[in-house]
């Protein structure tokens, strides 16, 4: 028996998301600056960033929480999606760059390049860019996962080589001659689909789209984990060899879910870039990927809602801490969070709540059952 896709929790979550997607842009655009209800644009961009991180966390939860694959390189898929979008945005600048070259982005003119590298081909078209956002991370995950899962690289070994993967990409993207802007990355964006990226309306739209993407991602995850496919994933998570002995092609399941997850991370990155206005190789740093894992752990792995909540919670804490006088102590808190959650809250916030509720329900059911049997056969209950 598979669980329902639209359980009450999911419906509640989607309603909250819908309220945010409509409410925040409305409070930004329709209210006066002086109004108490006004949401300033910077705050909306910040929330937009959180929503993108939440989508990234969701993608990690899908593989870690339901299939036991701990990727320490998911930041790489996020960044690759971001770079695909960043390249589209760079091409939209056109002749308005500092050097005024209609074809080449500024950094290429600066490096004295004469023509557009092959990797940039076609990225002035939005549909192609969207395709790349999905295709590049997906393809990398497919190839990487195919190699890794086929030779049964599991557990910690897999985590370590994903970390090596994102580290290698970090080094590569830092290079100027790699053709993606070197350590400055891509920035100074002007338009997206003809709308000014700095304008409030564009930002409001981007925020709403991010919320929609998160909702879609959430529904996709729910559908996946509620199906038979999801049941097999959980079987693999809990007893991989047993699932294999039962005749399931463990590698194929892992590869499929890993690729889907990478595409989701890519979408998150693509939505992130226009809202923060820059993408640079720092996004590939292994520390970023592992930080994203802790969002999921805080919220509760295998709960989906928990991953979203964890991402928003940790990032909100980060913003609050690093902008105040406590900034030097943020790493203590983050480090403490890693240790504390793994030691005392291994199920995460939402996981603990769910576990507690399930425990109560089973106790109640037990009590009911024993009541029923007690009334029927008083002596046999001993």
């Amino acid at each position, binding site marked *: 028996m598979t669980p329902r896709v639209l359980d009450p929790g999911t419906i509640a979550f989607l309603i909250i998301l819908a309220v945010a997607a409509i409410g925040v842009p409305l409070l930004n655009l329709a209210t006066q600056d002086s109004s108490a209800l006004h949401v300033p644009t910077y705050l909306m961009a910040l929330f937009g960033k959180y929503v993108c991180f939440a989508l990234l966390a969701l993608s990690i939860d899908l593989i870690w929480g339901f299939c036991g694959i701990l990727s320490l390189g998911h930041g790489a898929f996020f960044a690759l999606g971001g770079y695909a979008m960043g390249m589209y945005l760079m091409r939209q600048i056109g002749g308005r760059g500092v050097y005024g070259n209609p074809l080449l982005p500024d950094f290429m003119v600066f490096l004295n390049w004469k023509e557009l590298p092959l990797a940039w081909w076609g990225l002035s078209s939005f549909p192609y860019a969207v395709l790349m956002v999905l295709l590049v991370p997906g393809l990398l995950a497919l190839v990487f996962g195919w190699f890794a899962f086929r030779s049964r690289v599991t557990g910690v070994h897999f985590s*370590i080589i994903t970390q*090596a*993967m994102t580290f*290698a990409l970090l080094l590569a993207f830092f290079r100027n001659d790699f053709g993606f802007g070197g350590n400055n990355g891509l920035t100074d964006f002007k338009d997206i689909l003809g709308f000014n990226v700095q304008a409030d309306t564009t930002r409001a739209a981007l925020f709403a789209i991010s919320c929609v993407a998160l909702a879609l991602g959430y529904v996709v995850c729910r559908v996946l984990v509620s199906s038979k496919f999801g049941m097999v994933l959980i079987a693999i998570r809990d007893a991989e060899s047993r699932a294999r002995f039962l005749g399931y092609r463990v590698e194929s399941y892992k590869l499929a879910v890993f690729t889907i997850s990478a595409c989701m991370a890519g979408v998150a990155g693509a939505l992130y870039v226009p809202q923060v206005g820059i993408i640079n190789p720092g996004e590939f740093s292994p520390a970023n990927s592992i930080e994203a894992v802790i969002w999921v752990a805080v919220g509760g792995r295998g709960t989906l809602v928990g991953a979203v909540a964890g991402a928003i919670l940790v990032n909100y804490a980060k913003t609050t801490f690093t902008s105040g006088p406590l900034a030097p102590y943020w*790493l*203590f808190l*983050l*480090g403490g969070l890693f*240790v504390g959650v*793994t030691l005392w809250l291994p199920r995460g916030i939402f996981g603990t709540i769910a576990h507690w509720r399930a425990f109560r329900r089973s106790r109640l059911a037990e009590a009911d059952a024993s009541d029923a049997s007690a009334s029927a056969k008083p002596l046999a209950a001993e």
Partner: protein
Amino acid sequence: MSPGRRRLRALFVATFAVLLTLVLTSPTFADAFDDALANFFTNSYADTEVGVTALAAAGDFRAAPVLKALQDGKLAVDPSSRRVLIEDGVAWRDAASGAAMSPAPADLKRVRLNNRLRRAVDAALGALTLRAPDPARRLEAAQAVFKSRDAGALAAVDAALAQETDARVKAALADARAAILITSAEAPEAARIEAVAVLRERGDQSALALLGSLPPGTPAILQRAADSAASAIRGRLQVWEAVQNAWYGLSLGSVLLLAAIGLAITFGVMGVINMAHGEMVMLGAYTTFVVQEAIRQKAIVLSLPGTDIGVILPLPAALTLDWSLPIAVPLAFVVTGLVGILIERSVIRFLYGRPLETLLATWGISLILQQAVRTGFGPTNKEVSNPSWMSGAFEIGQLAITWNRLWILCFSLATFALLLTMLRWTRLGLEMRAVTQNRSMAAAVGIRTARIDALTFGLGSGIAGIAGVALSQIDNVSPNLGQSYIIDSFMVVVFGGVGNLWGTLVGAFTLGIANKFLEPFAGAVLGKIAILVLIILFIQRRPRGLFALKGRAVEA
């Protein structure tokens, strides 16, 4: 011996004889110096030139300032007192006695220069440096002549070559001479062919460049000799390049080995993913810094932060920085070992059997340790100096070997050997192996497994601390030090095979050497990327590393 060479040698002998008589027949150097100065009074360019040459030949320590003053137009003669004077700011000094002359004599005449004379002065100054008392300066001068290939310096080089006793300077002078001869079209052919042989012997890039840049109109025989010498040098340089890459690779491998060896214990033997391993290395490096700081201040200052309460323990004055590393190594082992035991007892022991959670928790610990060091010592790089026995370099052929790299190589191998011995021969090692191989059986025969776990983790961390002492000698000591080693260390252990120390050794040196041999083709960064990609591919082929432990264990 060819007639040309004989003639040349006769010429040299004659020149030296003249020079020697110049020096020897004069009762003292001082007289030769005074005689040389006498030439400046006649106010004729020709006599001045004789004086300049004589000054250079006199080899007196006062000659250089005189020539320098002449070059700058600050030399004058006072015909009435027959003195040569040097302008020194506003005052005048006697060139012979160095005494200040005040008031300055009325009828001073500056010694005039023309272009020919200027060249003579330059050559004479060069010749004087070629015979400076300090061998290092002589070597420098000879190398400068080698670079400039100034034909005018030939006589000075010849003269210096005859007197030189230091073998290195002598070789440099011979090279300089060869460089001049080979590029000057006027030199006799035999001398030039001889010069080719000298350069062939030198056999480095600059010799190659010289051989390849012969002036037009070079005789065919010389050109052939030069070409064959050049190809010989090229062949030799290729061999040296390979040797050098191998050395750099060994050096990098030793660094990787040091960084990874502690991890081979915690990860390889215990199966604990210690992401805070790099921070243990960092703590070891900071221990070195603290030791050096105490030695610099000649005291150990212990105080409660933010208060005046504390004690100052003086250190003996004989304790120099040369002793800092022998002190830092055991200290770092103890400090990081204790930190490791603390981490194991407080966090890791609750997470055995949950490797992914261990990974996250230790990552958190690494963040905390980094921030703690940043708060305590500041975010900037700390200066850790090399002891005198670790600085400098020596050369084997074309290969320059720095002492610190060599020491680190020896040190890493020694650490490895010590660790292996410890695991093989001591009781603790035996118990460690027992617990790793079969925990419940070990417990059944009375080994306190929890204690062994803590000690093993402490040992791994302590070795990371020792690595930090060594790495402080070649890397920046900053809170981020550990971060740069953690991925490499994991790669080494995973590549070599988890649970096998020999695998770690082979893995470290293989990766080090492969990296350095890739670098010339791909550049430093691309080389590293290539290595990472190769390891990722390698792990796909052999998920358990080079030296996999054989067994029937199948995980859930």
